[in-house]
């Protein structure tokens, strides 16, 4: 029994090592770079507090708008920069296909779950890292979701997703005016970010840890 546990954990460790090797050999940045991107990603989410229940579930109740403001601003700026980087050969497209059923059924389930949990798969781990046990339970639920999806992918989920209608981007719908479309899209999305009224729901339990000068609700 004892040895069985040891081999089990050794197997698990070797599977983790395999994960690192997959990253090293797939040519999408060095292991250190990917880890660093993760640190910055977690740092930005944590530092802006958008991992909080009050920000995400708060948005679902329309009592906090920090998450959409930040998301739209990031998209607006990136869309313009990225388009010209791709034209210059400094980046490539990685478009996800239009699979109507998958997007609508999946998006609906995702939105419902995001409102109830108050997290998404990117912000959840950041919450766990700051000690939120309820989110850890949610992540275990997610692990089982991933397990069920993997087990029944070919029999159930793939047919449910339906056929791909192709990989489309907005500028392709306006041949000849691509640059104009990109600029309009980027500017409109950025304007949306700025024009969404700023409403905030604060968590007293967090703010009570800070001095009066540090409190965002008192500035």
């Amino acid at each position: 029994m004892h040895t069985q546990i040891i081999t089990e954990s050794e197997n698990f460790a070797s599977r983790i090592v395999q994960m690192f090797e997959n990253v090293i050999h797939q040519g999408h940045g060095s292991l250190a770079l990917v880890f660093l991107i993760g640190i910055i990603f977690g740092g930005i989410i944590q530092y802006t507090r958008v991992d909080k229940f009050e920000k995400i579930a708060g948005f679902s109740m329309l009592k906090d708008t920090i998450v959409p403001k930040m998301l739209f601003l990031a998209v607006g700026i990136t869309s313009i920069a990225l388009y010209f980087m791709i034209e210059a050969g400094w980046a490539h497209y990685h478009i996800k296909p239009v699979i109507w059923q998958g997007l609508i059924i999946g998006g609906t389930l995702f939105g419902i779950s995001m409102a109830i949990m108050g997290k998404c798969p990117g912000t959840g781990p950041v919450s766990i890292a700051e000690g939120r046990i309820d989110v850890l339970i949610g992540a275990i639920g997610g692990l089982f979701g991933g397990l069920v999806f993997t087990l029944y992918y070919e029999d159930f989920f793939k047919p449910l997703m339906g056929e791909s209608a192709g990989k489309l981007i907005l500028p392709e719908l306006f041949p000849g005016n691509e640059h104009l479309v990109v600029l309009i899209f980027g500017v409109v999305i950025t304007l949306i970010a700025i024009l969404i009224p700023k409403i905030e729901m604060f968590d007293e339990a967090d703010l009570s840890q800070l001095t009066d000068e540090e409190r965002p609700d008192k500035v």
Partner: protein
Amino acid sequence: MSRLPWWVGGILMSGLLILTFSIFGADRPLGASTYVPYFAGLVFDLDPAKYKYLQDIKNPGSWEGVLLLGALFGGFITSMFITKSFRFSLIPSGWKKYKNNSILSRLLWSFVAGFFMIIGARLAGGCTSGHFMSGMSQMAISSMIFGTVVMISLVVTGKLFYNTEEK
């Protein structure tokens, strides 16, 4: 400063997306939901030879797995030293105010929502990071459909699930 304003966060996130996309960075989009079934494969010791989905997600899953480890580390360090928000807790203040005081209710709903969140993200092919941020930044039609559906279902659920009347 213990909190970054939303616009600083948006600009920094944009910089990170551009770094990730660029050939000088990772030459791929930033995503954060494929790692979950990948980890499910690791934890439950599924044989990739038997499951086509695990073969499909081998590269993105492991890439995002390392990203996740970094996010955990970055989130932990920031919460300890900058936002000072690290503490163990079982129920968010907002849940107590707008839903109920039951820890059991919060944990059960968390588990169920976590389960369906990953099913939903994998059906759609992405999440807030992969579809909303990375996909919309490429002006992908699929991501705009996803973003619209999620926004509607999120706000409708928020209205129905919580008692949003001010007490």
